[in-house]
């Protein structure tokens, strides 16, 4: 079943390419059905057994190994796949792109892969549909953004592939994700661990992205069409953070600890840099893009403070950010479709005419600015609780500042588009259709539910114990009494 989660969307996407242009509507519904079916399957596969097929024996063993039943940190993949299928389904409601399905399959592959080589292959594979869309749909009719995206991410992908190969040669197998909580191979020399990790880390940092490797991201987000940017920002950007959690923490603990300080600094810089940049953008999508830089910097802080609360919060925030960013980009797309612009200086007063769209944007924007009670807040509070507990007191204060900035830029964006006097020189188009409402509704429900109780996502082992399913497992870290 889990293998099908990866393969079926890819095949369906490729098949859609073959459909004639007249069958656009059918293609859209095929896409929606496939992605929501994937959501249901993912939701039911929490305890499904792994599927494994060895396909490489030398120079090291590699297998097509996919699954959710990983121990330790890799179990975060389950929540992200759940989010991914949900976000894609929602995105597909408002567009009809076979590339989306290919992307869905490839990204699912990244998060369910239990083999490093498989992980690396899917990692690179998921660039292709985005690149093709950027080339074909670029509003500026230039391929500059597409190449910027491709070259940046390919550099990371190359480093990842080399590091994976090196890991395979040293360890004898790449089938390592989620197997162990601790250094896999005692035979791995310290220097080798450092260099292999460096390859992984470069790929992760570019993908997230983290300052100063971020400049591909605002351009890419601005140019991608709405449903794809929703999925790319919601999920593809999480691949790097997921990598740090699922691969970094269990396979390279020493190297992770060694780079903790620089990583915390990079995270803090991203956090502030993105928030300040988001304050002054005129393009609503660029506001969200820079806010992503800021928010994901916070997750990096959570991961590298090596604290159970911070780590649980990081996973919550990864999922939360996916939910509200997908929602933001979907609603921004709907605004752009209606008004032919997303420039704050040209929009205004939309809520009077489009109250439903206004309501949808309100909720996702509030989640993004960390309104207590919604999912963004739950992640923030857990991350920073752990950050402070881990002794990073000054860093906690630094991490609090962007919350105020987020309130300022998110409200500026929301009010610039939705409130104030109505702008006359934009097309007068009707409010959301039922289909569009149905597209955003699952995200909104998930935003609220995760905000009320992030427990199962943050502390999955604990949740499993209380409801009596799944293997009992010790918390990843012991709460220090410092």
């Amino acid at each position: 079943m889990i293998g099908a989660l990866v393969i079926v969307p890819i095949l369906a996407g490729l098949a859609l390419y073959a459909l004639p242009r007249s069958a656009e509507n059918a293609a859209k519904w095929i896409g929606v059905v496939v992605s929501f079916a994937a959501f249901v399957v993912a939701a039911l596969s929490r305890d499904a057994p792994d599927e494994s097929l060895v396909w490489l024996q030398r120079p090291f063993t590699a297998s097509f190994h996919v699954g959710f039943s990983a121990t330790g940190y890799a179990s975060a993949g389950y929540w992200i796949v759940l989010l991914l299928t949900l976000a894609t389904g929602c995105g597909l409601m408002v567009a009809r792109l076979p590339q989306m399905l290919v992307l869905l399959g490839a990204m699912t592959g990244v998060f369910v892969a239990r083999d490093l080589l498989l992980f690396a292959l899917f990692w690179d594979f998921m660039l292709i549909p985005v690149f093709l869309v950027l080339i074909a749909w670029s509003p500026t009719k230039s391929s500059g953004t597409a190449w910027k995206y491709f070259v940046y991410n390919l550099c990371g992908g190359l480093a990842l592939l080399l590091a994976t190969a090196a890991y395979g040669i040293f360890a004898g197998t790449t089938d390592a994700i989620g197997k162990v909580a601790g250094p896999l191979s005692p035979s791995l020399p310290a220097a080798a661990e450092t260099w292999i990790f460096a390859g992984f880390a470069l790929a992760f940092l570019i993908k997230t992205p983290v300052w100063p490797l971020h400049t591909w991201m605002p351009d890419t987000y601005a140019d991608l069409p709405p449903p794809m940017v929703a999925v790319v920002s919601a999920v593809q950007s999480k691949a790097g953070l997921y990598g740090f959690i699922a691969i970094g923490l269990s396979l390279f603990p020493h190297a992770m600890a060694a780079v903790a300080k620089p990583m915390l600094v990079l995270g803090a810089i991203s956090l502030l840099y993105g928030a300040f940049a988001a304050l002054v953008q005129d393009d609503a999508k660029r506001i969200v893009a820079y806010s992503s830089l800021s928010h994901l910097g916070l997750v990096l802080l959570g991961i590298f403070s090596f604290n159970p609360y911070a780590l649980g919060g990081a996973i919550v925030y990864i999922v939360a950010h996916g939910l509200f960013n997908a929602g933001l980009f979907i609603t921004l797309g709907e605004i752009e479709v209606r008004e032919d612009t997303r420039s704050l200086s040209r929009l205004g007063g939309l809520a009077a005419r489009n109250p439903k769209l206004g309501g949808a944007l309100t909720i996702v924007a509030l989640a993004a600015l960390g309104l207590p009670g919604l999912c963004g807040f739950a992640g923030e509070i857990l991350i920073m609780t752990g950050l402070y507990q881990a002794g990073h007191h000054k860093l906690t204060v630094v991490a609090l500042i962007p919350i105020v900035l987020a309130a300022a830029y998110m409200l500026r964006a929301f009010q610039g588009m939705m409130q104030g006097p109505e702008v006359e020189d934009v097309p007068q188009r009707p409010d959301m259709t039922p289909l569009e409402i149905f597209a955003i509704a699952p995200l909104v429900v998930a935003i609220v539910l995760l905000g009320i109780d992030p427990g199962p996502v943050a502390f999955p082992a604990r949740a499993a114990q209380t409801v009596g399913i799944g293997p009992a497992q010790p918390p990843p870290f012991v709460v220090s009494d410092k």
Partner: protein
Amino acid sequence: MTTALHYSPLLPTLWLLPLFGAIALWAFGPQLRRNAGYVGSAVVLVSFACALALFGEATLPGNPVRVPLVSWGPGFDLGLSLDPLSLLWTLVITGVGGLIHIYSIGYMWSDRAIARFFAYLNFFVFAMLTLVLSDNLVGLLVGWGLVGLASYFLIGFWFYKPTAVAAARKAFVINVFGDIGIMFALFALFAQTHSIAFNDIFAKVATFSSGFVLLACIGLFIGCAAKSAQVPLHTWLPDAMEGPTPVSALIHAATMVTAGVYLIARFAPLWSTSPAAQELVGIVGALTMAVGAILAMGQWDIKRILAYSTMSQIGYMIMGVGVGAYQAGVLHFFTHAFFKAQLFLGAGLIIHALHDEQDVRKMGGLYQRMPFAFWAMLLGTLAIIGFPLFSGYYSKDAVIYGVLEHGHPVLYGMAVGAACITAYYMFRMIFIVFFGPYRGDVPDALLAIAPAATAAEPQEHVAHAPDWLMQAPVAVLMVPTVIAGYVSIGGANSPWYRYFGNLFGGADTAPVAAPLIPEFGSTALVLVLVALGIVAAYVRYGAPAAQAAAIDRLRRETLVMPARLRYLLWFDDAIALAIVRPSQALGGGISRFIDPHVIDAGVRDVAWVAGALGLAFRALQSGLVRAYALTIVIGAACFIAYFAYIGVPR
């Protein structure tokens, strides 16, 4: 700590009812139209009834009603708790809130978005209940944030007005700044106690170092200062008057802005252990009290006069609970909720009758036209200035003397002075609004009113609600406005002090110093100063001669006022200069310079080097087989040399 779980289904009911009301009104607003007002009011009044029904259970000493809700993780257990302190707030929120709901039916009668208005009001009540009922810091923060959101929605209710939109955003952002203060305190306290529950935190207070307590208290107080409009985070409150008047009464006078008082009273066990924190809070509260009173003297907008007076009165409360006179500070919250709601609702009657005129210079002589509003405003005014036998007299006197008893003579002096100013600006308002000639038809130029300054958006007044719908809640409020203070007659043995028992730590909060002057003397001093304030207002605005020359006097005062008004804008300008503009400049610098011209330029340089290397290596691809063979040999030699000298990794 507590033995068996003291559960009652009434508690979640009264908490969730307003939420369901909000959702229902939001979903079925178009169908309900004007009936939304009745539904919204009924929901809140049922909540009030539930709270009353729980009165006996909640006031059992040391055994609050508790409802566990959800557990996020170890130490993160969220739940509700109803003890005397939260019960008091619950009763005021749902009781006064219910009256204001009923009043709003009339006030918003002709507004097309009346259902949305009541959805927001109900949502506010839910959020405020979350704030006061939570038994932990995260739940409190959720309520804290959600009341800010409700306030944002309601300030910006008429969102086609740019001023309302800007005011709403300002209020929200400043309040988020307060939120991060509380968040910081949460992190600090959690690191020490591994729990977010108030009980667990208070149980370990004895183990905290004094520096740590001060740090946590400062964090909490940043939240209080933002929410309760304490200097210098008060600048959003006057702007918040852009919202409909019932909103000003409910959120920006009676309940939400007193959340800071609640928080300090709730954290009394923590605060009482830090004299430094108490000193700080007392000073900030006193400054707010003074600044609010001074600024209230110079306002022309009736709602802004009341807004600054609210700020000043909250200053009293914060100062009271800050220095340790918890019962007195909370009592002032209790009485203030009634008389300030009454003042705002009375002002609303006037604004409504004059078709959204809020400028007191354009009023005058309304005593004959609107006797009911006059009596409502007069009773409220007598209460707020602390006129004997009115509710404010008991609470304000308790705060003022409590400050002296807890050993703060300077703050005491400021409190007495502010009481005098309060009497002056309140009676200034009464005289200008209700006496002298009616000036509604006097041209603006004669009063020197700048044309744009008072441009009110014309509202549709197609139909009017029956008068009693708005007057009845005001009439009901008159009763507690007069008598609410009587609960504290009898000092430490009064029902008020017995109600709280030792919730605030009993002996810890006892006075520390023998006061300089006896209570009787202090009361007399305050009364003399209050009388002085009234007389000053009378001489300037109320005496027959002053009334006759009112237009001339108001014009002259308007002309000199801008200089004084600018004083209130200093805070805004300082925040803009120190925080807002540098942030925007930094953001602009990043997105216009650093990203494209520094980071991208660096990447382009790397790309250029790569391109140059490519050119260099292109020379190798000559197509000559012998050259390729040579490179293979060289490469193989390097490879062998590497493993020969460095060695194969195991």
